[in-house]
């Protein structure tokens, strides 16, 4: 059986969601292709009459667009941005991102639940970015979220799985895809989250600030695939104490 990620009834082979911020539009196509990403995030901002480039021209066909609601400070603003994004005519997916905190950029979980409820009722495929908390994740599920996106560490920090134990609880208890978002800084951390049972990884800054963006996207792809395979296979056991020889314990040369 083929292993697929299903979000809002849509099937994806890739478990890598690529962010498109902080880097040159000319690199987006190569990053998507080398990273094998089938979902890419975008933001909505005021248009400027002096610019001629449009990001949509750089995203390969067939890639699902996941607009975020960045800039929203409460549920009402997130709903407004989500509706405007959908009016662009690029699908029903939305990543809810609501922040009040300017230093750590932590999401406002309560407002995120409110926005999720409104948008899910309007037929959006809602992927809420959240601070990992089991009760909040349950509320998001009840509100109609298609997945839950817990943060690993602050956005853009590249600090890795600071919330590892909390994310593991969500993976174990919530019957929705758990997509680890924010703070994943290197492929090994993406791999570790996938080994834990995460459904997918969303990364932007780790790739955008790498020496070679398309190559790092590929490194993430491979790490995510490795972690997924290890998770599906089942990890080898860990001994409480002592060692266990890997070699036969008979027939020694004497």
């Amino acid at each position, binding site marked *: 059986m083929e292993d697929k990620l299903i979000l809002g009834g849509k099937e994806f082979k890739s478990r890598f969601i690529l*962010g498109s911020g*902080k880097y040159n539009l000319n690199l987006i196509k190569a990053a998507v292709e080398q990273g094998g990403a089938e979902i890419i995030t975008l933001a*909505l901002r*005021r248009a400027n009459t*002096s610019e001629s480039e449009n990001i*949509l021209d750089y995203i390969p066909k067939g890639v699902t667009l996941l607009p*975020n609601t960045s800039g929203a400070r409460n549920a009402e603003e997130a709903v407004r941005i989500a509706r*405007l994004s959908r*009016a662009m005519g690029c699908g029903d997916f939305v990543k809810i991102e609501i922040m009040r905190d300017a230093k750590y950029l932590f999401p406002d979980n309560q407002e995120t639940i409110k926005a999720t409820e409104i948008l899910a009722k309007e037929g959006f495929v809602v992927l809420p970015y959240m601070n990992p908390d089991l009760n909040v994740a349950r509320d998001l599920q009840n509100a109609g979220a298609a997945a839950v996106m817990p943060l690993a560490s602050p956005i853009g920090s590249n600090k890795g799985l600071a919330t590892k134990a909390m994310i593991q609880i969500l993976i174990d208890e919530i019957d929705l895809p758990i997509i680890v978002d924010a703070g994943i800084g290197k492929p090994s951390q993406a791999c570790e989250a996938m080994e834990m049972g995460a459904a997918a990884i*969303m990364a932007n800054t780790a790739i955008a600030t790498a020496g070679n963006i398309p190559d790092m996207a590929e490194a993430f792809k491979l790490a995510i695939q490795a972690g997924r395979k290890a998770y599906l296979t089942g990890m080898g056991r860990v001994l409480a104490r002592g060692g266990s020889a890997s070699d036969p314990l008979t027939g020694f040369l004497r």
Partner: protein
Amino acid sequence: MVRINGEEKAIAGRNLLEYLKTSGFEPDKVVVERNLEIVPRDELGNVTIQEEDSIEVLRFVGGG
């Protein structure tokens, strides 16, 4: 005056679609909000900009 993307402009009375085109916006690559209501793309040509309108013209950019 009319507020468009935060700037005051004397454009009341003009057709919205015609204004966007002559100002350098690409109407098929933006979404327009007028007084907090979305203007569907195929209705842009039916809207006359009114005095005191508040208009936002938005497009997708790179983001996480």
